[in-house]
């Protein structure tokens, strides 16, 4: 089961080969300069060793030309590294629009995952091959970090906010999942597996699992349980604004500032509604701090998102809406 000893990690995501190409470039550059410097030093060391006691070195004080040359060359090389790295980094940080949203909550010392179809897993995550997967993550306690070496992706999982990571697996198999942010006693045991399956196998796997409700449907239930629906009516006639179609849109607050309604904003609206009050409404929404678990929050948010909003926002909702026959927007 455990992988064999090797000197290089497997490539199992679409981004892995891009990272490796850059890495090899940097490695070759580093090896070149390290060797160059070592060889030159050795040569000088032998060639210019002291021949007799009173000898001194040549009186060379410097050369402007040389200084410029050996400033500019490193500058150029590092700029290449920067730009190339930035291209990959931006790609890593920009979630493709067609990504399917999965959820992860980390806590000391385990990973909890939930699939858009509702399946839950602990310390393992099954994903279909070739599909773009977006993980929305948060932590219940300290900072953790989601790291799958074979995918070359990593993202800290921070309490109190949502972070995302995306990947598209390119090879079926079982890959290590590590927590890479030190998080206490069993940091080193907060490891698991990501299993990449053929889409068909994945469907079979899903079917085999206990039937579960999608997060957004669970969210809809919570929305009623926590009487959100008493204020947030769909037509906007309630005491609170309608939540239909708001996701990803801009809003104005009473203090004159504006903001985009993203995941973090929704979370803040539910936990600390008074920190930003939507223009035209009174500050009457109660705080739900301490009443909703991180998992419930994610479900509520995915419900709000399923009510539609900016393009690309409701992708996961759309995907699941098809199965339930409910239409967003």
């Amino acid at each position, binding site marked *: 089961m455990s992988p064999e000893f090797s000197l290089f990690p497997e490539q199992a995501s679409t981004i892995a080969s891009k990272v490796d190409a850059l890495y090899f470039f940097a490695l070759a550059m580093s090896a070149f300069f390290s060797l160059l410097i070592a060889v030159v030093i050795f040569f000088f060391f032998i060639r210019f060793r002291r021949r007799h006691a009173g000898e001194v070195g040549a009186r060379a004080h410097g050369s402007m030309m040389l200084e410029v040359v050996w400033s500019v060359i490193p500058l150029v090389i590092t700029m290449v590294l920067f730009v190339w790295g930035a291209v990959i980094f931006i790609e890593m940080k920009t979630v493709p629009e067609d990504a399917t949203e999965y959820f992860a909550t980390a806590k000391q010392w385990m990973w909890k995952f939930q699939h858009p179809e509702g399946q839950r897993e602990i310390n393992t995550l099954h994903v279909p091959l070739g599909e773009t997967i977006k993980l929305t993550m948060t932590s219940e306690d300290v900072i953790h970090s989601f790291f799958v070496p074979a995918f070359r992706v990593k993202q800290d999982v921070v309490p109190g906010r949502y972070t995302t990571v995306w990947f598209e697996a390119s090879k079926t198999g079982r890959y290590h999942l590590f927590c890479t942010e030190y998080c206490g006693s069993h940091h080193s045991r907060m490891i698991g597996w990501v299993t990449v399956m053929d889409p068909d196998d994945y469907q079979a796997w899903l079917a085999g699992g206990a039937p579960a409700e999608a997060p957004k449907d669970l969210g809809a239930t919570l929305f009623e349980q926590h009487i959100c629906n008493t204020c947030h009516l769909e037509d906007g006639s309630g005491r609170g604004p309608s939540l239909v179609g708001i996701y990803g849109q801009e809003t104005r607050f009473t203090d004159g*500032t504006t903001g985009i309604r993203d995941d973090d904003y929704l979370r803040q609206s539910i936990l*600390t509604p*008074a920190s930003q009050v939507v223009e035209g409404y009174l*500050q009457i929404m109660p705080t739900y701090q301490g009443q909703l678990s991180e998992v419930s929050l994610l479900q509520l948010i995915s419900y709000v998102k399923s009510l539609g909003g900016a393009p690309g926002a409701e992708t996961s909702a759309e995907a699941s809406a098809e199965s339930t026959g409910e239409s967003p927007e």
Partner: protein
Amino acid sequence: MSDSSAAAAHPPGLAHHFESYEQQKHSSFLGMWLFLVQEVMFFGGLFVVYVTYRSLYGDAFAAGSRQLDVMIGAVNTTVLLISSFTMVIAVTAAKKGNRKWIVYGLLLTILFGGIFLGVKYFEYGAKWQHHLVPGPYFEWHGEGVGRPVEIFFCLYFAMTGMHALHMVVGIGIMLFMLRPAWRGKWTPQNHNFVEGFGLYWHFVDIVWIFLFPFLYLIGLATH
């Protein structure tokens, strides 16, 4: 500041490793200024935290700010500015070698510094009574949620507390300065200590010049 072992060949008040009063004076001022640079960065850390949370929790900070009494803040600012002025009196007197006025200047500065701290003491007391001290006792009944407002008060206490601590140290040093001042230790040639201390006191004043608007005034306009 005198070093007994090597003092023989050296004029009084000039440490053994310096060549001249001039060198000693420049050294001690540069040292003092670098110390103040250090202080700027020290308080600066707090200001950066402040600015960050102010940009994250604008309304809550305004709400928290409204809990402070602006009048008290303004009066205390005045008191502190006057104490800076009385410190200038002491330093100017030291330059002239007027030991009587060094002592008066210091006494006045201690007085105004003391008033400032006294007022702060009552302000803190009021915060305690209103459950505005962060931690388990904190309670918030005003507009906005408690947490961000609590952070405002965390910063309020950290910043004013650190400022007050600097004043307490300053007043302590001034109390120790009274005796040598009266005995005429500081002369027109050598009064680096008084002048250096003056810099410290003015710096503490500057910190407050920023704290006053940041803590007391930000909530005035809204509501």
